[in-house]
């Protein structure tokens, strides 16, 4: 080229992500200070942690091999209880979620119904299943029924919210077209709404079954029955090989459920 050479800058720096330098350094400094204080107040008992190493080793070694013998059938009973609990909680939760979800869709329900249903959704979503389970155990006594109640409430919060969002996002023109034929409200739901949201909902229900099974393993720790109770007992008695077996079984079942849900979702669509 004929234009004057070396008039071009030979230095270039990537422009920073945050343009304002005060803000940039403020953010970096703030995060550093937080990390320092956070780690400082962690209050770790290193001696205790050191003492725990042999125990940790024992726990890991218990996986080779895990003890599947299950002489008193406690593991099998626990697993089955968890499975039943998860199934019923999913079915009951979804049965309640459908009306709640319809009510919580702003394009479907009148204002007061909408607010009421949204309140139900928010209420059942805020607290983790374990806290719900603690209260359920207080009210219904120890056992799978309490776990069932906790999981069902959790399911409502999860499912009704997603159902409502799905309905709000659906194609308005299809809904309008059915309404224009003079269909009644139920016919309208059946012909315009249901076909649009159904495939995703079926996939989600299997996913929620998967979540409920996993959660059923923890509600047992606070007295909600199922495999969690068995696992807790195994830990209390230092029966690490049984605990390892239970963990592996949980992992196996979750994998199977995940596979089924993937397959089902493909089949539905």
């Amino acid at each position: 080229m004929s234009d004057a050479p070396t008039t071009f800058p030979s230095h270039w720096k990537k422009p920073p992500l945050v343009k304002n330098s005060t803000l940039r350094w403020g953010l970096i400094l703030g995060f550093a200070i937080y990390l320092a204080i956070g780690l400082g107040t962690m209050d770790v008992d290193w001696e205790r942690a050191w003492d725990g190493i042999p125990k940790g080793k024992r726990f890991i070694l218990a996986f080779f091999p895990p003890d599947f013998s299950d002489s008193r059938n406690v593991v099998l009973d626990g697993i089955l209880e968890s499975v039943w609990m998860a199934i019923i909680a999913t079915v009951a939760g979804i049965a309640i979620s459908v009306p709640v979800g319809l009510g919580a869709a702003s394009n479907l329900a009148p204002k007061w119904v909408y607010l009421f249903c949204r309140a139900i959704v928010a209420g059942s979503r805020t607290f983790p299943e374990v806290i719900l389970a603690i209260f359920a155990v207080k009210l219904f006594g120890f056992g799978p029924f309490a776990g069932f109640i906790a999981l069902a409430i959790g399911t409502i919060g999860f499912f009704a919210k997603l159902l409502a969002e799905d309905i709000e996002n659906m194609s308005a023109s299809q809904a309008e077209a059915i309404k224009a034929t003079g269909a009644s409200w139920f016919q309208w739901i059946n012909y315009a709404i249901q076909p649009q949201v159904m495939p995703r909902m079926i996939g989600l229900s299997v996913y929620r079954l998967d979540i409920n099974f996993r959660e059923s393993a923890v509600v047992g720790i606070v007295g909600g029955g199922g495999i969690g109770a068995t696992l807790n007992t195994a830990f209390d008695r230092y029966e690490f090989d049984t605990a390892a077996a239970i963990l592996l079984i949980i992992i196996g079942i979750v994998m199977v459920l995940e596979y089924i849900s993937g397959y089902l979702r493909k089949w539905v669509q």
Partner: protein
Amino acid sequence: MLRLEGLSKRYKTGDEALKDVDLEIPDGQVIALIGPSGAGKSTLIRCVNRLVEPTRGKVYLGELELTGLSSGALRRARRKMGMIFQEYALVERLSVMENVLSGRLGYVGFWTSWTRKFPKKDIQEAYRLLDRVGLMDMADKRADELSGGQRQRVGICRALIQDPDLLLVDEPTASLDPKTSRQIMRLINELCKERGLAAIINIHDVQLAQMYSQRVVGLELGSIVYDGPPDGLTPEVLTRIYGEEDWEATIEKVDDEDVENAPETIVIPKKKTASPKSKAKAGNGKGKS
């Protein structure tokens, strides 16, 4: 000089994209590769720098046989072949400057590329190229903020900063409007002349191919069916490449286009810009049949 010998490619799906292609491109020659979609144009270009691994045949760049290279040597060889993509293929979330400098990746180490501390002369060259294509002020913009024509210019800079001997250009105008298409094609052409680069330009627009190349190669179903000067594209030849169509209108257009003396910004009469693609043009029908 680039030389292809018996180049063939069969995809796993069983499609035979290239069948025994022999081609020689002397230094500094710009050739246009035309042909219908699926004729194997993209595959041919990608077999040269081995983004697609050819099944059979050899590719020579100068004395070097590209087809036999190990991955390290191939990376070094790729530095000498700049590639310009359809749909630009810029890394959209990086800045324009980073996109241009990414053309130097083959020359620098991992640490330099991580810290973006490229050598001074690379940065200078990047600025020089951006200035050449008229994007000096855009250096620190993110690539996805640019318009289509601007992005393709960045793509050109990225290829040229590699300091290549050969340009591989894959449908550079596929997603550009007619006017920008011409500007981009002219820019590529000029840059090739300035630097004495050879280039293979894949293009489906016959008119543009005729305007901006010294030689046209027609590909049909993976075989070369035409190899000759741009004005040798008669209706018979085009029919051989693309199939039966009304080709008169397409060819006629080229004659009254003064390519050599075109001003910096071509103002093209509306009726010509209206439908630049040969296929669409045939629909207008200047009446042959």
